[in-house]
């Protein structure tokens, strides 16, 4: 059994209560949501916290997927499993379903939350790639009130986010634009493993022409989400296998993978191209109604 260092434990009863606790207890306090990233680090003693503020009771307040005409709002405490099972998400943003099928295992998905995933800001995090691809924004609440930041502002670098010391992430907002679809592709070494590379794609078509497209990669270095050069290459052109391959090549050129136990940099770069191609192909097929 892995044993964490000593810590105190508080259970928050509301978002405001959680913020008060964070404010009062200072920098030694840490929020625990699903605990699937934080607890392993505590047990390995890579992270020591003085106070753990458990926000699982806030699932009532922050566990939801709400569809509005122009956007979808997802509460920060929504569990992976709820994202996977949500029919609304599957219909409007199939990228979530694709990604969640390949994130971790049922045990982790039953507890892990979208808020925890984004706040963990692991460079291999699949949901970060999904949210960036979808041009999501994040609602952060603190003692001074609420602010909304884009994903680009939210993600400050590996394991760093815009969430301040006494703040919590409460909601993720995803704009809905007509005639769009999305897809996610991932290659891991095993079911439940973090990605070797994963790739999210969102495309919008106007008749036979791509009006907009976004591509985000995970696990291949910084700045690989929402790659603007890929979007530029795709806009205004009809979808085709050649175009997808071209986009893949750009995606591969934009990333900076490293050799590690998951694979060689060369292989990862190759995957970046291949998965971009596949995700584009699938997202466009969904728009055509050729795939669900």
């Amino acid at each position: 059994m892995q044993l964490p260092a000593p810590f105190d434990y508080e259970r928050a009863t509301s978002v405001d209560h959680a913020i008060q606790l964070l404010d009062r207890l200072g920098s030694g306090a840490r929020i625990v949501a699903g605990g699937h990233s934080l607890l392993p680090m505590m047990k390995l003693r890579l992270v020591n916290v003085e106070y753990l503020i458990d926000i699982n009771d806030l699932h009532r307040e922050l566990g939801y997927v709400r569809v509005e005409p122009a956007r979808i709002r997802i509460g920060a405490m929504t569990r992976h499993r709820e994202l996977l099972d949500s029919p609304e998400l599957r219909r409007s943003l199939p990228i979530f379903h694709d990604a969640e099928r390949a994130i971790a295992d049922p045990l982790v998905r039953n507890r892990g939350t979208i808020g925890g995933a984004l706040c963990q800001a692991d460079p291999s995090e699949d949901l970060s790639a999904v949210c960036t691809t979808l041009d999501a924004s994040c609602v952060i609440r603190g003692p001074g009130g609420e602010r909304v930041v884009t994903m680009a502002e939210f993600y400050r670098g590996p394991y760093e986010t815009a969430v301040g010391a006494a703040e919590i992430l409460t909601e993720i907002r995803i704009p809905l634009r007509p005639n769009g679809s999305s897809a996610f592709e991932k290659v891991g070494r095993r079911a439940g493993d973090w990605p070797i590379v994963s790739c999210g794609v969102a495309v919008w078509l106007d008749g036979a022409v791509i009006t907009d497209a976004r591509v985000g990669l995970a696990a291949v270095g910084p700045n690989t989400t929402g790659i603007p050069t890929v979007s530029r290459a795709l806009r205004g052109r009809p979808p085709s296998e050649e175009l997808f391959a071209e986009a893949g090549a750009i995606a591969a050129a934009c990333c900076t993978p490293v050799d590690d136990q998951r694979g060689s940099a060369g292989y990862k770069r190759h995957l970046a191209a291949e998965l971009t191609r596949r995700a584009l192909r699938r997202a466009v097929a969904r728009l055509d109604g050729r795939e669900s």
Partner: protein
Amino acid sequence: MRRAPKAPDHRVPEAASAPDSRPTAFVDNDRKPVGHGRMLRKEDPRFVRGKGRFLDDIQLPGMLHLALLRAPIAHGRILSVDASAAEAHPKVKLVVTGAMLAERGLAWMPTMSGDVQAVLATDKVRFQGQEVAFVVAEDRYAARDALELIDVEYERLPAVVNVRTALDPSTPVIRDDLPGKSDNHCFDWETGDKAATEAAFARADVVVSQDMVYPRVHPAPLETCGAIADYDAVDGGLTLWSTTQAPHAHRTLYALVAGLPEHQIRVISPDIGGGFGNKVPIYPGYVCAIVASMLTGKPVKWTEDRSENLTSTAFARDYIMQGEIAATRDGTILAVRTSVLADHGAFNGVAAPAKYPGGFFGVFTGSYDLQAAYCTMTAVYTNKAPGGVAYSCSFRITEAVYLIERLVDCLAFQLTMDPVELRLANLLKPEQFPYTTKTGWVYDSGNYEVTLREAVRIADYDGLRREQKDKRARGELMGIGVSFFTEAVGAGPRKHMDIMGLGMADGAELRVYPTGKAVLRVSCQSQGQGHETTFAQIVAEEIGIPPADIKVVHGDTDQTPFGLGTYGSRSTSVSGAAAVLVSRKVRDKARLIASAMLEISVTDLVWDKGSFHVVGDPTSCVTIQEIAMHAYGTGDLPDGVEGGLEAQVHYDPENLTYPNGAYICVVDVDAQTAVFTVRRFVAVDDCGTRINPMIIEGQVHRGLTDGVGMALMEMIAFDDDGNCLSGSLMDYLLPSALEVPDWETGYTVTPSPHHPVGAKGVGESATVGSPPAVVNAVMDALKPYGIRHADMPLTPSRLWEAIRGNPQPPI
């Protein structure tokens, strides 16, 4: 020979359809009340209810907790150890450093292979994760917290990580503790006939060479290792609960190492959550727990966490093998030659019989009729964890089988022959048994061609080849891999095989109580293999008492006769034989008593599984239960026969048993991502007489999963500084149900001629036989690219590099 039936001989009934009111575990006994056959496991009701009693479930009054401080670096000199802050922790009872153990002469202990290993480091640390000091505290959290208060100053030394350059003169010497040691050489070993092999190679039309790596892997049992030591200072007795596969051998070794009188040591191995060889060695933690209990006068518990288990306990494999195979143009294999570079880590902790430093690697000639074979092996020290255990194989046979089965496939590739045809042409014939291999192993029995043809039939091999042809025409990658293995399990005989002087033989004791219920005591130790069921069935078959009425006692040295324990598929082949013989001894005595009861000569008695009756008169009969009551009662006993119905034996196997099998694996490879899936896997095992087919299938399923894991993803990796990169199950990947197909198992039955019921071991066959089948299948899929070999683990990345003509060995 029985062919694999679609419906097994006696099925375990569906629980729902069981009309019986008794526990479903025993329902099958109604249909087949006595003896061998398919039967649910007697131990499972406690496991499925969470009522197993594992080491960490045991709580003793006043028990303290021990935690080990481990080296953060792979190689470094210890300059100073300051434990004062840890000692000042309010919950800490004791802190012990290497220097303190050295004062008691306990800083070093012998390994199972003639080397020594540090219990706590005194001079240097030699691998990352090595034990440096320990803390004993009131609870396990405090013990862990106090580790952080111990200040150790190291002078870093360059780490020896690359096994290929470990013997270069410029490389730092790891084992400067050994007198006169000036390099990292561990041992050299050879087997076979060099000159004859050279001559056979000279005659060959075709010689194929292939280098291959069997990477370092870890047995990774679900339950990590641990111990509770309880030393009674008044009577001088030590009770040690520990996760051990060999409680009796451990008891003797503690007596020899710690100087405790052996009759005062009681080793108890409770329920064990998997061993796979990992729980054969004695680890420093066990010794530290004993020392701690002696020093504190309290029971002391030590349990490892997952990272400690993966980084510091015994690994397996880690062989770099250069293989060569010689054949005629028409595919007659003439000879095999190999040279092996073995990484033994910082201490030679291999758990293998003393005369076999390379384990049973000598069976690398496989299942084929060769003219000559030769092997040289060089083992070296590196700054990595020690070990080299029989991880689900009988002492290095996994490596040997991988070598020969890859070489045969490379030869098939070279000759453009079908791998099944090539094997069929070279397999040993039934009439050649007992067969002495060119390296001196005497294979007991086999019907290899029939076994392979059975696998071919189940798999529909020809149909698969047709499907592959169609797929290749469409540019899709599909591969079919075959392997044929021969295992060598059930060590001894004792005169050839020993662990630190203890002959590899096992005892059994059987007591039949007055009411006809029985207790069997055996020296082997289940880690999940179902001994409580199989051994009860073995006895039931011999003396006719139903398995439900037979209790199997194991894992407590005060309660069981001496024996070397469970690993290398020894249990059924050695202890199982002992159980048969002790049952027959009891039956012989029962026959004498029956003759007195029926007032008839023993020669006029007929045994009918559970009763003796008079020849020609089945109504004149006494049951074993009646005989038991008589044996303890007041009735007359024959002259010279004592009362009671019990017996004891010590079984020394005449030879190993040689289970074998034919495996066929089908994979599909995504050419763009290089991700492959194992679509089908057919395993036909021949383990001789099958005592409980359901348990055998369970063992095979486990081993196949293991084999797929090793072929695809498992590896203990290190960086250039000797940091272990595989210290958690996020990094050391084990396969899940999603990576493996529904197993298709079949069997043939070729009994072992020297085992009293013809049974051979089977626990490890599938781990041994499956990795080459998977790799052969993947290589077969990549044939269109002209690739012959890529090393395990076949991660998508390594496969992609191989497809691009750049196959990289993992080390």
